[in-house]
């Protein structure tokens, strides 16, 4: 009986102008952000002839993965034609321990600074933050001297150490800011339970900081994986990371520039961090929301 009666006033419209504008904005942003990736992918799949036609948005005629294969194991830099494969494994060997170590050390720093407040902690933190603002270039010579003195120059442990040292400020910042948001009572309760410095860290604080570990590890991973300068200077000829080899391939050309191989090599180099962001972006966002980066 009451349909006429109940029907009163305009029902809210679901699709408004604002909504359309919103999606229009988002879609245009999708184009802006995705375009470079799209171009890289399609170019890497083209044949040199297709590339010469200078239509960067044209889709490749077929799925031609030969450029990828060549970039992986055949592309030449100088007399060596080994692609980026060796660099890939070097990068893995550098990045994995460097990330693990720097995150551990950074977490430890953040924990010690926020809960234990040892003497000089504030100064240490301030100096660490100041260090983060210095251009890397000026560290090179002295660091080289120090590492050479330790017989670590041009070795795998050496380059790992360098990354750990330069990663410390950011990771420490992340963890300190996270730990200060945790209730101090937790720490007090553990003290009453008789747990000491390491025990509280290992059994209570670390398990609680998983979101932050994810954020720190992702930031460090991309930072270290993408590094060029430190790898170039400290890694030594046997451990050159992927980025250096990418540079060698992209910046040397024989005759016609092989854009498809360049792009494939570029993609290969970016693949691991990209995969990490595509697969665990959600965790990254969650970790940030859990308080990683504040003031």
């Amino acid at each position: 009986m009451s349909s006429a009666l109940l029907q009163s006033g305009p029902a809210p419209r679901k699709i408004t102008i604002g909504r359309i504008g919103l999606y229009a904005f988002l879609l245009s942003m999708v184009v802006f952000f995705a375009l470079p990736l799209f171009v890289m992918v399609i170019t890497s799949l083209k044949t040199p002839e297709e590339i010469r036609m200078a239509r960067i948005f044209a889709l490749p005629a077929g799925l031609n993965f030969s450029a990828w294969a060549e970039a992986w194991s055949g592309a030449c830099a100088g007399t060596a034609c080994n692609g980026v494969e060796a660099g890939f494994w070097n990068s893995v060997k550098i990045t994995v321990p460097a990330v693990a170590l720097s995150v551990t050390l950074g977490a430890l720093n953040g924990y010690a600074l926020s809960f234990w407040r040892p003497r000089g902690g504030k100064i240490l933190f301030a100096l660490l933050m100041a260090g983060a603002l210095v251009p890397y270039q000026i560290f090179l010579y002295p660091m080289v001297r120090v590492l050479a003195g330790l017989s670590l120059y041009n070795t795998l442990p050496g380059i790992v150490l360098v990354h750990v040292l330069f990663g410390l400020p950011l990771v420490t910042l992340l963890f300190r800011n996270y730990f200060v948001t945790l209730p101090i009572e937790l720490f007090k309760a553990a003290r009453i339970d008789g747990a000491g410095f390491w025990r509280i860290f290992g059994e209570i604080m670390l398990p609680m900081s998983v979101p932050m570990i994810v954020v720190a590890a992702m930031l460090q991973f991309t930072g270290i994986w993408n590094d060029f300068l430190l790898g170039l200077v400290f890694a030594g000829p046997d451990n050159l990371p992927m980025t250096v080899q990418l540079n060698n391939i992209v910046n040397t050309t024989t005759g016609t520039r092989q854009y498809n191989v360049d792009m494939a090599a570029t993609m290969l180099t970016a693949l691991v961090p990209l995969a990490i962001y595509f697969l665990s972006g959600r965790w990254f966002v969650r970790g940030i929301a859990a308080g990683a980066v504040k003031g």
Partner: protein
Amino acid sequence: QDTLKAEVFTSWTSGGEARAVAAIREAFETRGGVWETSSIAGFENANAAFQNRVVAGNPPTVRQSVLGMDARELIEMGLANSLQAVADANNWRDVMAPAIYDAISYDGEVYLAPVGIHGQSWMFYSMPVFEAAGITEAPTTWEAFFADMDLLKAAGVTPIAWGGQAWQEAKVFNMVLLSQVGNDGFMKIYTEGDEEILSSDAIVKTLEIFGRLRDYVDEGAPGRNWNDATNMVIQGQAGVQFMGDWAKGEFFAAGLAAGTDFGCALSPAATGMIFIADGFLMMKTGDPAQDAAQVLMAEVATDPAVQVAFAQAKGSIPVRTDVDTAALDICAQKAMSMMDEGLFVPEHAITISPDMVGQLTDFVGDFFANPDADPADAAQQFADIFRR
């Protein structure tokens, strides 16, 4: 017994360069050496890696180095091994042009093993493109050159394949400069900073001509690599390229023949050939095995047969005057004959410090990038580099 192992640090990574190095490598290995390549693309990157290794006390055995001022400080600091004994034993003083022998000697002692000389005042051009535009032969004056370029423009091709990096532009600038001040003037500027020439009209004229080149350059030029520019000529997209003879390597690699597919002419109004030369610097490693390898390397690199093979691959000319030039291409032969006539002038990198080289490069790069730059003002800036 220790192997004769040498780690060779070069920034030669492109096709022709790589093949040239391979020629030395082959001979070195045949004679019992063990060759290990460390190559980093790009001068800045290679330098950064190399210098840091020196600082760390862990230098490579052999360092590719430009003859002249580039290696001076390393030698003065006692970081390099002398090659005087090798030079004496192999009689370098007699088999090499005096200009070269001077350039490898520092305070009377030989330190560098020269491996190749590059003539730099070349103008490479695409013969089919010239033909299509109705140009019959390479221009020898700037006026003729600009007239030809207008023809190319009208024909719808990019007149000049321009590598828009400052170091390349500096080389073109030198070609124009040489045409305006002559060989002696050029030497006076770059060795003594001769005030009279620096303040003469010739410099302004040089800059005017150099500035006019901007009109014949495509908009993709800034930042372009030299080999990409060469490729434009190879592909017939552009008419000419001013570049050192290493560009020949690209032409050859593309299967083009000198004199039929592409021409190598001296840059317009050139009075001589500007050259630059590469050599091997033998770093002090403190390791006797590597010292021995260095001696072997010096001998191999200057070996006549290797010299020819190297020059062929790289497009350069041999450092020795006593080699058989028959195997070389016509461009190289043309250059060799100029060398014999004493028309070779060393490039600025051989005679002025890297610091000044940098300033010159900046100057040229800025001038070319700015169409509004006033040649008269710019001439002042140019002179200022030498007045410091």
